[in-house]
Each structure stands twice: as structure tokens, then as C-alpha cells.
């Protein structure tokens, strides 16, 4: 982490919690977790609430779909930490590594539902160009994506357009595949609370 406070500036209670997490997972506490535990009233608590609602709240999208959106937005932003974390979580949620790999490699040829493909396409444009047009949304509605699904996808996109930037600005440590798998298990069993 590029700020020392994000490595060591925690209250005694949080340090104890980190020690317990480390003991249970046998891995260092991921930098994404450290970020939301630092002065949580400023950013971590409201952000955890937003992310939990977007990723695990009621939605017509499955948990796998939303984790895939998170991974795909992260890929568009080239955020290495979040690509690894949310690809692993999407694979765990779907129990289908090939599906996630296909989308991450080529959205247009991946064997997925057309509504999901159209939604990912819109999220990619929004993330890359920072804006979309009414015609982009019209195309989604015409493809059968509901207003609620679009709003839910935009909530995921907001969460990860924020998190991707912070991961790169603060210099999150990027673990190997085992670290990402361990994190994915936690996110699938406990969510973002």
C-alpha cells in the first residue's frame, strides 16, 4: 500500500480482527479489506453497504452475473487486483470457469445470454468512455433487459468504477491464484458486509 496508514493505522480492535482473519484464512488480510476498515465512517461503512446491496441484494441478475460484471468492468479499467478477485468469485458463483474465461477473453463470442452480453457491452462503453447515450439504453430495453436490471448493473458498475480506482491509486498487493480463491470463498459465503 502506498499510504502507511492503510497498512498500520488501525484501532486495536481492528488489529485483533485482522489477526483473527489471518489465522482463519492462513493468508494476509487482502488490501481491499484493509481499505474498508480504515476510518470506516468516512468511506468503508457506506461503501460496504452499497457494494453488499449491489452484489448480494435482491436482483434479477444472479450473484454470478453480478460478479462477472464486476470482473468485466475491472478488465475495462485494467485493474489487476479486481480482475483476479472478481473473476475468481464469478467462477465460484457459477461453478463454471469456462464461462467466465470466455467473457473475459472475448465478450462478442462468449456463449452467454444475449441480455447479459448487451448489458456488459453497455457497462464497457460507460467505463471506457465515461458516458453512454439514450440509444445505448434503448438497445438494452429492446433486447429485453428490464429497467430494474439496468439499474442493478449500473450500481455494480458504480461500485467497481470506484474500487478499481482506489486499488490502483493505493497500490493494492496482487496475490496469486490461491489468494484470489481464498478471497472468493469469503465473498461467496459472507458477502461484502
Amino acid at each position, binding site marked *: 500500500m502506498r499510504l502507511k496508514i492503510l497498512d498500520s493505522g488501525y484501532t486495536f480492535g481492528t488489529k485483533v480482527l485482522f489477526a483473527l482473519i489471518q489465522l482463519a484464512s492462513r493468508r494476509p488480510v487482502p488490501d481491499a479489506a484493509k481499505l474498508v476498515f480504515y476510518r470506516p465512517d468516512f*468511506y468503508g461503512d457506506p461503501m460496504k453497504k452499497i457494494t453488499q*446491496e449491489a452484489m448480494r441484494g435482491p436482483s434479477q441478475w444472479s450473484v454470478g452475473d453480478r460478479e462477472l460484471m464486476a470482473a468485466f468492468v475491472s478488465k475495462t479499467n485494467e485493474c489487476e487486483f479486481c480482475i483476479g478477485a472478481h473473476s475468481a468469485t464469478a467462477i465460484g458463483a457459477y461453478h463454471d470457469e469456462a464461462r467466465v474465461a470466455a467473457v473475459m477473453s472475448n465478450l462478442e463470442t462468449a456463449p452467454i445470454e444475449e441480455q447479459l452480453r448487451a448489458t456488459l457491452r453497455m457497462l464497457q462503453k460507460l467505463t471506457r468512455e465515461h*458516458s453512454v447515450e439514450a440509444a*445505448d*439504453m434503448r438497445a438494452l430495453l429492446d433486447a429485453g433487459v428490464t429497467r430494474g436490471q439496468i439499474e442493478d448493473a449500473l450500481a455494480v458498475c458504480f461500485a467497481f468504477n470506484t474500487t478499481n480506482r482506489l486499488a*490502483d491509486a493505493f497500490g493494492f498487493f496482487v496475490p496469486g491464484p490461491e489468494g484470489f480463491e481464498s478471497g472468493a470463498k469469503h465473498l461467496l459465503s459472507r458477502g461484502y458486509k
Partner: protein
Amino acid sequence: MEKKPTAPQALATRVLEGDGRASRPERRAAFDNTTPTEPLRGLISKVANHPTRITEDDIAAVKASGLSEDQIFELVVCAAVGQAMRQYQNAIAALAVAIRGERA
């Protein structure tokens, strides 16, 4: 308005208007990507537009200019939330226009 579109707004309101170590005008400028002076301006602009290009040196330069780590933490958070918020609001507005067109 439904509940979900307001959730990002609650975060924006907290980081901009709640207590903090950086001043509210500084946080607002970072959120809007209108920070006036270097080297902070360069860091905030990268957070908004090219986060993968941020280096140790960018952070070190801002520290050397006199800002504390807590102030940098807050201003970087504001810049990230601000850029994500602009994109989100743009998309919600585009969706509203598309839905109005559908009903017309």
C-alpha cells in the same frame, strides 16, 4: 426515485459533507476533478482518468507538498467516487430519456 439510484449519492454526500481532515472545498474539488494546484492536481486527475498510471512518485510528491496521509486518503477517495458518480448519473439520465421515449 427508487432506493437503489440514491445509494451512491449517500456515499458522495458522506465524503463531501461529513467530517474529514481535508477541507470540504478541497474534497469537493477532488470529487469534481477541479483541484487547482500541482502536484495534487496531477494525482487527482490520474485517479479520475488514468488510475493505472499512478506511481509511488505521484503520492510522494503530494506528501512532500505538505498534505498528510489522511488528507491524501480522503482526497483520493473523493476523486474516485466523483468520477464513478459522474458516469453513474450520466447512465441513469440516459436510461430515463430512453424510457420517456418508449412511453411517448
